[in-house]
C-alpha cells in the first residue's frame, strides 16, 4: 500500500468545482500523474498529482477539509 501526501498546507478539494464529480472515487484505479484533488492555499489552487500507480484508491482526507503539508490524502493499493 502507498500513500499520497499533501505537498502543501491548505484546504483539500476532491473535485474541480462543487457541482463537478470528484477527480477520483474510492476504488478507482490510479496512474502516475493522475490528478486526485486540489489544495487551496491562500486563495490559489494547486493540483495534487499521484506519484504512484495502483488498482484502487481510498481517500483518507475529507473534501473541503483543512490539511497540513505531509498529511495523508489517500492510500493506494
Amino acid at each position, binding site marked *: 500500500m502507498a500513500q499520497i501526501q499533501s505537498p502543501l*498546507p*491548505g484546504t483539500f478539494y476532491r473535485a474541480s468545482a462543487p457541482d463537478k464529480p470528484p477527480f477520483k472515487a474510492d476504488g478507482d484505479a490510479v496512474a502516475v500523474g493522475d490528478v486526485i484533488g486540489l489544495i*487551496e492555499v*491562500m*486563495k*490559489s489552487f494547486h493540483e495534487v498529482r499521484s506519484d504512484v500507480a495502483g488498482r484502487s484508491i481510498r481517500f483518507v482526507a475529507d473534501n*473541503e477539509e*483543512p490539511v497540513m503539508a505531509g498529511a495523508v490524502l489517500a492510500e493506494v493499493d
Partner: protein
Amino acid sequence: MLKKLLVANRGEIAVRVIRAAQDLGIATVAVHSDADAASLHVQIADEAVNIGPPAAKKSYLNQANILKAAAETGADSIHPGYGFLAENADFADACVAAGLVFVGPSGEAIRTMGDKVAARSAAHAAGVPVVPGSTGRVADIEQARHMLMDTGFPVMIKAAAGGGGRGIRIANDLAEFEAAFPQAAAEAQAAFGDGGLYIEKVITRARHIEVQVLGDGRDAVHCWERECSLQRRRQKVWEEAPSTALSDRVRDELCQSAVRLARAVGYSGAGTVEFLYDDETEQFHFIEMNTRIQVEHPVTEMITGIDLVAEGLRIAGGEPLRLKQRDIVVRGHAIEVRLNAEDPSRDFAPFPGTVSALRVPGGPEVRFESMLYAGYTVPPFYDSLLAKLVVHGETRAAAIARLVRALKETRIEGLRTTRPLFLALAGDPAVQANAVHTRWLEGWLDTHSARLVPEFQP
C-alpha cells in the same frame, strides 16, 4: 454613538477596525475561526468568540454564527471590514432585522451597486461617464449591432450577474461578436442562473483611479483620489494618493462625479467609486463602486489626516457627516505597498508559515498596518496579505525615498514575501515617472520577476 462593535473579519483589517473603535471608546468583540484563535485581532479585542472551523464559509461567511455571537455578547453593531460579508446586501439586511447597526451603506445601496447593470444605469443617471457600451442589458444580436456601430471594437461581453472578472468574453470584430454572444448567454445562464448580458468597450491602456467618498445617507463628500494602476491579475499591489496623472480640472470633475453618484444612491459610510482614466483623451469612465472600506484606504488618510474607519463608525452611530468639503485638503503624497506571503520569483506562489522574527519599520510618516507578531503562524486558509506598508512625503519622490528606507528596515523572517518586488519597482524609471497603466506591471514582471528572489531565513 455605538457602544459595542462586533468586527466580522480577520487579519490586518480586523486589527485596524478594533483600534479605531477603541480610540472612540467603543467596546469591541472579535470573531475568529479555529485557525485564528492566536490572532492579533483576538488578542487586542475586549472579547472574542469562536465562530467555527477554518473554512471561511463555515466561519467568516457564516451569517448565523456571526449574528449569534453578536446577540450573545450584547453587541449593538457589526463592522464587516472588506471581503467576506462586506458587500453582501442580505447580510446587511439581516443585521438590521436583528436590531443591529450594520457599519456601511444600506442593503439597498449595496444591492444597486452589486448589480453591474444597475450600477452603470445609476452612474449614467447621475451624470457620471461610464465605459462606452450598452446602457442596460442587451436583448439580442440585432440590438447589439446598432450599438457596436457607435462603440467600435474590441468590446467585452459581460454577464450582468457576474463579477470579479468572471463571465467576460472579448470580441475583436463583428464576426467574433456574433459567435461569442450566444455562447456567453448560455454560460451566464449556467453559471449565474441569469443569462443577461451587457457590453463595454475595451479600454486597452488606462490608469485605475478611484475616489474615496464619505456619506451619511443624506449628504456626501469626497476625500480625493487614489491611483492603483500597478496591478497583477486585476489585484492591486501598490497604491498612491494623489494621482500625478490628473490635471486639477480633471481631478475636480472626477471627484465631483463620484460625489454625485454617492448622493444619488443615498450612500452611507466610506465607499469608493472606481474609474478607468485614459491619459490621451483625458477622459474617465466609471467601472464600479465598492460599498465598503478598501484595503488601500490609508493612503487617503495619510494625505488628508482623516481617520476613515473612525468616521464610518461615527456615521453608523447616527452622527451627521462632520467634514465639510472645503476642510478636506490634500497634503503631500502617500504610497502603500502590499507585503504578501508570496514568492515573486516563482509566479507569486503562496508561502504560509511561521514568522520566526520580525522587525517593523518606523520613524516619521511611516505606518505598518499588520496582524503580524514574532511567533505568529500565518494560516493557509485565507488571503496572503501580511502587512501594508504606508509612507507619506512632501512630494512623490520623497515618498518613494521613504518607502525604500522603510522597506530596508522591514524584516519578516520565516516567510517569503513580496518585499523584493517593491524595492525593484521603487527603483524603476517608469514607476518613478508614474508612466504606467493597468497592464504595465504584468509586462514588466515577464522580464524582471526572475531576479525578485526573496531573502529567506527560516
